[in-house]
């Protein structure tokens, strides 16, 4: 693979600017015409602790982080704890190097900051391993180069300069990017650092095979994460209210929305907790504004009760669930897909919601828009589920992709004129919850509208919203609410399945997955059924320990259990392609799956 792709990893401590350096590096490669993909790994800690970002670049579109990587820029952790006997965290200083060696491919490059890491601090077997793996090691005193021209923090820039020299990347892109984001004087010193490091390394021996592929974009590209895309989807679909409470990784969408909403004529509210956040979203939506809230893990768990209130009062709302490794606080900065069942079923009584699990940046945008559309057309909560993996992935997308019209349509909502024609109780109260309506949703009014008054109640209610325990009314209301899912299934089948199938129609073996890799929608099971019908055996790939997605498919279809094997990963890191290959082989050939990082669960025998 080395010829046609670069997988570059920059490692250091939290708070050392790894994130922004990697982002500029990625943009530079994108501007140079490549397709890019990033993968972020960081600890639940503000300063220090081992963090890295991996950037994969190819001439072709990139879908995943790839297998291993081939260039390590190890910067040192300036907030490392001092080594101390018995302390379980060991020697943090060397972690930016040591923690990254396992995944480095044969023939890979290591650049480390010898200004922070003495040769004697290196692990004993380092030279041995380097030799065995044909690693090309470049100890460079990046720190001193940085200090010489400017400040110590600029060692990241020095590292980028060294990378450029080793891989023969034009410095132009880096300079442009720095010029765009830095004040003049900072820019100048950075350029000095960049060029100095570049110069020194350019003079060295380059006996490695790692190189940057070439590529060319037909149209202009932008670099975004799924968090950006969800935000933009919401804004374009007319969302003008958000309420939230910070929680990793949900905070990303919440922060972006909070920054943009005031200029978009909307309101963002940070409130006392997630129960309040979801309740505020309901209140604003009830009063006529397209609204959202969301959270992660435990914060979303607190939204369980308001979620049910949205279902029975038929208050449209979009919730984002940004999953992370559970249960409980779990591993707050690590990805996992363990919240699927929680999101589908939390809150008492029969669930009545739509769940989207977009698989990439473009889907995140499209599906967020669709979530709002369905929420407001059908008066149902729509949940966009994504995870740490997607929020940390930057990908390039055509700029044109975002050249769309915004949608100010408030959905199944009446104007005062329409209200004057609508069904009312003899007393003048609007029948907001009629028993029979074509598509499931009974159109709503908005407080302040003349002729629209009604009661929204979490109790079962009459067409006007008054509390009722009459069994016939109950059945009619339940049926109408439940029917929405059928209508939505049909709607999606006709208009936008959000499911994609790749490969041969006549394949004997299949692989199925959701979310971070591909999108799915609850209840839209028909396509999956057709797919499973067509294959003999299928591997279901998901990032959790209890095979929730496979369980969902089985729940919905009640068949195919004996055809489905599972590949499960829950150690805090997303899948690498090779693991899936091995799992797939285990499915077909019955070979042993031997990696300790994931678990293969064969299909239950017939």
């Amino acid at each position, binding site marked *: 693979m080395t010829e046609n792709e670069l997988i570059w990893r920059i490692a250091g401590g939290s708070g050392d600017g790894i994130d922004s350096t990697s982002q500029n590096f990625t943009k530079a490669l994108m501007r140079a015409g490549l397709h890019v993909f990033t993968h972020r790994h960081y600890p639940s800690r503000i300063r220090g602790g081992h963090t890295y970002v991996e950037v994969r670049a190819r001439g072709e579109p990139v879908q995943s982080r790839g297998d291993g990587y081939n260039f390590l820029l190890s910067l040192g952790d300036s907030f490392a704890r001092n080594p101390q006997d018995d302390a379980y965290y060991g020697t943090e200083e060397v972690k930016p190097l040591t923690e990254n060696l396992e995944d480095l491919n044969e023939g890979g490059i290591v650049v480390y900051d010898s200004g922070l890491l003495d040769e004697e601090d290196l692990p004993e077997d380092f030279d041995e391993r380097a030799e065995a793996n044909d690693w090309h090691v470049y100890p460079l005193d990046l720190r001193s180069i940085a200090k010489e021209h400017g400040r110590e923090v600029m060692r990241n820039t020095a590292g980028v300069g060294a990378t450029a020299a080793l891989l023969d990347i034009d410095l132009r892109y880096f300079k442009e990017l720095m010029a765009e984001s830095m004040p003049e004087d900072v820019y100048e010193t950075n350029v000095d650092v960049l060029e100095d490091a570049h110069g020194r390394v350019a003079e060295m021996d380059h006996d490695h095979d790692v190189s940057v592929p070439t590529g060319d974009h037909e149209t202009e590209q932008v670099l975004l994460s799924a968090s950006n895309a969800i935000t933009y989807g919401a804004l374009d679909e007319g969302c003008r209210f958000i309420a939230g409470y910070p929680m990793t990784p949900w905070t990303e969408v919440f922060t972006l929305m909070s920054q943009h909403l005031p200029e978009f004529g909307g309101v963002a509210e940070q409130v006392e907790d997630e129960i309040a956040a979801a309740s505020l979203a309901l209140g604003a939506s009830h009063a006529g504004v397209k609204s959202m809230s969301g959270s992660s893990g435990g914060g979303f768990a607190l939204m369980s009760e308001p979620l049910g209130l949205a279902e029975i009062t038929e208050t449209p709302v979009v919730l984002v669930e940004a999953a992370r490794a559970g249960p409980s606080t779990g591993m707050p900065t690590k990805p996992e897909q363990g919240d699927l069942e929680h999101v589908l079923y939390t809150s008492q009584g029969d669930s009545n919601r739509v769940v989207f699990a977009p698989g990439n940046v473009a889907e995140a945008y499209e599906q967020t828009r669709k979530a709002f559309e369905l929420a407001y057309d059908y008066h149902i909560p729509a949940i966009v589920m994504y995870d740490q993996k997607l929020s940390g992935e930057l990908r390039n997308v055509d700029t044109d992709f975002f050249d769309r019209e915004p949608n100010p349509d408030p959905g199944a*909502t009446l104007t005062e004129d329409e209200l004057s024609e609508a069904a009312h109780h003899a007393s003048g109260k609007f029948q907001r919850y009629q028993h029979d309506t074509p598509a499931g949703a009974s159109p709503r009014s908005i407080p302040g509208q003349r002729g629209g008054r009604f009661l929204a109640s*979490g109790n079962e209610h009459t067409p006007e919203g008054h509390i009722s325990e009459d069994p016939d009314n109950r059945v009619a209301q339940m049926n109408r609410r439940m029917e929405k899912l059928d209508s939505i299934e049909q709607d999606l089948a006709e208009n936008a399945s959000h499911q994609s199938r790749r490969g041969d129609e006549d394949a004997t073996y299949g692989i199925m997955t959701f979310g971070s890799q591909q999108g799915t929608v609850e209840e839209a099971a028909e396509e999956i059924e057709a797919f499973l019908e067509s294959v003999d055996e299928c591997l279901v790939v998901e990032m959790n320990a209890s095979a929730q997605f496979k369980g969902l498919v089985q729940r919905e279809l009640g068949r195919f259990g004996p055809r489905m094997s599972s590949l499960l990963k829950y150690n805090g890191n997303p899948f690498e392609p090779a693991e899936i290959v091995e799992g797939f082989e285990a499915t077909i050939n019955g070979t042993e799956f031997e990696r300790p990082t994931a678990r293969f669960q064969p299909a239950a025998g017939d």
Partner: protein
Amino acid sequence: MSAFNAIDTDREIEQEEFTPEIEPQATWCPGCGDFGVLKALKGAATELGLDPEEILLVTGIGCSGKLSSYFESYGFHSIHGRSLPVARAAKLANPELTVLAAGGDGDGYGIGGNHFMHTARENHDMTYIVFNNEIFGLTKGQTSPTSPKGHKSKTQPQGSAKDPLRPLSMSLSAGASYVARTAAVNPNQAKEILVEAIQHDGFSHVDFLTQCPTWNKDAKQYVPYIDIQQNDEYDFDVTERREAAEAMYETESALWEGKVLTGRYYQEDGRRTYHEEKMQQDSMPESPIAEQYFDDDHEWKRSYDLLDAHR
């Protein structure tokens, strides 16, 4: 143009308009203080010339929560303890609505206590009525956060070991800008206080003593009551925080001894409402957000204009 023509109409409003014909009679027990709140609220709304359709009344769960079933307006009968977050967002979505929130002492001071504190400090321009019957009514008579110490109930058979919470003092410390206590047995004062509370610009909190003859038989029926504004013994300035605090403390302590003090306790004028604060900081649009969706001329921004940061 307004899409919300029930707001600020100048029609003549009759008190009967606030009675829902669909459910004109409440199911509260005979003698329940909740009837007093309903009546006072109807009176206040009429006196203020409010249109039923410009009011959003958000209630919690409890006997008290049924208020929205018996008061004709836009209503939201939400979940236990969460009326305030629902209500305050509706106000942000459409600041021209008259937003009222109501619920019980369990609902507002128990499970919903944190929302109460935070809504008060934010000073949203709305009125919060707490039906304080010192008991959980709807769930059949358990101890509530305002039940006096020693109060016996099914869940506290030996008597409550907890000091009751001080709703007025808490409200003041939290930042409510209008605080009053009234009682169902004092209909005139109740109506007047509700009128003032609704008129007040900012968060107004009315602790409304509502006797529960069914489950709180031992408790006083809140008679005789003393109106502190009518009684020379309690001369203090309701605009002075410090004096208000003392009066509240005394009132709360007195109630546990069976002495019922009611009236206005605190009124802070001139403090910006939350809406005004947000306007001040350019983080709130000038006209109601809810109107944008009905305004064909509204200019809708789009994300395409934000892409520079991603190039």
